[in-house]
């Protein structure tokens, strides 16, 4: 992760097609194009795992079935706790085989159709249900030295609770952090950087113009004037405000936005140095 920050490698989130897609072929083609474009740009393709509890195909099976070619160090797989033990082990083995080293380990959002890992599945004896902490411990124990494990940080959660949770995640083996979307800056993210100066952090940039969606998800009005929300300007501000952080781009528009963000990081840094 530190390498990504030093080399100004964006983390670009790409969602696999949903299980109930009625135009699967087209969705697969779209996914392939996005994946290849991220690889060609030298950015890191971050593939979600049933995001928001919506059933979707797994990142590893997408890469295998579509015969995509992950570049070393440029693919990150999200992995949550809503899997069977067999599926979990299959995903981890696939990642190992394909030399995908970065995993973002999250508790995740469930659904009626999704199974859930049990404490026995991951060898946890002291908990009633599996969270990202138990999953981190399991991966660290079963695959020592194989993966670089990241975790999520939510500045919109009650602060004390979120920091206590982060402590447990770090103890369990997390070595990088990705925040929830931040608009310009967030004081709780500042505290996070202060508390963990040696852990690489990527701040998430909300690239959709529909900022209302984010407000709805986190339970706050995150932008003062939703109508004038400008994702690219916000991204620039994130670079200015968090120069030692990476940036994770969610809901990036591949048709119009992608070209606008190419080289943006370097551009903002140069401007900052010049000023």
């Amino acid at each position, binding site marked *: 992760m530190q390498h990504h920050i030093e080399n100004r490698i964006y983390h670009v989130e790409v969602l696999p097609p949903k*299980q*109930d897609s009625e135009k*699967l072929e087209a969705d697969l083609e779209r996914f392939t194009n996005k994946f290849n474009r991220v690889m060609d740009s030298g950015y890191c393709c971050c593939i979600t795992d049933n995001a928001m509890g919506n*059933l979707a*195909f*797994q990142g590893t*099976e*997408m890469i295998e*079935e579509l015969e995509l070619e992950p570049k070393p160090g440029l693919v990150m797989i999200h992995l949550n*706790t809503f899997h*069977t033990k067999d599926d979990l082990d299959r995903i981890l083995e696939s990642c190992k085989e394909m030399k995908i080293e970065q995993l973002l380990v999250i*508790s995740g959002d*469930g659904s*009626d*159709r*999704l*199974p*859930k890992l049990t404490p026995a599945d991951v060898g946890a004896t002291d*908990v*009633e*249900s599996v*969270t990202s*902490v138990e999953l981190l411990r399991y991966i660290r124990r079963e695959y020592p030295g194989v993966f670089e494990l990241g975790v999520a940080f939510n500045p*919109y*959660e*009650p602060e004390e*609770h*979120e920091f*206590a*949770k982060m402590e447990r995640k770090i103890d369990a083996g997390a070595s990088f952090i990705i925040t929830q979307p931040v608009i310009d800056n967030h004081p709780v993210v500042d505290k996070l950087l202060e508390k963990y100066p040696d852990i690489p952090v990527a701040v998430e940039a909300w690239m959709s113009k529909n900022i209302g969606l984010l407000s*709805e*998800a*986190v*339970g*706050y009005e995150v932008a003062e004037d939703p109508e004038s929300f400008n994702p690219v300007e916000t991204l620039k501000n994130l670079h200015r405000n968090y120069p030692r952080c990476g940036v994770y781009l969610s809901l990036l528009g591949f048709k119009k936005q992608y070209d606008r963000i190419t080289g943006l990081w370097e551009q903002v840094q140069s401007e900052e140095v010049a000023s």
Partner: protein
Amino acid sequence: MKMVVCVKQVPGTHDAKIDPETKRIVREGIKAVMNPFDTYAVEEAVKIKEKSGGEVIVMTMGPPRAETVLREAISVGADAGILLSGRAFGGSDTWATSYALAKAIEKIGGVDLVLCGKQAIDGDTAQVGPGIAAQLGWAQATYVMEIPESNNGVITTRRMHEDGWDLCEITLPAVLTVVKDINQPRVPTLKGRLAAQKLDIPVWSPEDIGADEELIGLNGSPTRVVKTNPPPPRGAETLVLNGSPSESAGTLVRELRRRGLL
């Protein structure tokens, strides 16, 4: 073991509308899904096949678009699908549907076990599974929550009822209807989904299965629907919070905030 799983396409909505003229559910324009209880029947058949070998054929009766639920079942491990379709099947009640499905099962031949979900979520009758058994003259067990054993032409089932469960040994061939406690249906893989898209699904007409036209469709349906009402809208919603107590508390706070309650 040769198994047939009977599945149904139902409206994937809690807001079903009833046609005042026909008294039937309006299905046009509503996304259709596999009846949730049928997904457990498919999973159980696939599990039996994986454990003891055999073949799983999934079958449904409906319009051409009902083929999608067959492909869904094939994507999670069923070997083949059969669609019963034709104008003459239209308007079949549960008895006429059971008759048509039973005729198709006879045509397939050599079937040891038929599995169905305990009921469909649109009609909620729970009659088709037992109806198939009656039409075929086979043994049946309903509300099956576990199949601990299956060998030498005998299947052991644990049946759920109000006061607990009972254990039944049933000589095959037989029909079982299953409840959701029986398993956790698997999620289709991309490989399975792509393979299912390529498979040919035969469409059988009433003539193909040798059905008596007087026993299918409206002609063969003794039921007359006098009045139908959609269920009242759900007044309450249950949100299950996963995670440790502290994480669940955090999720609860966020959810209350999102709803403007905090």
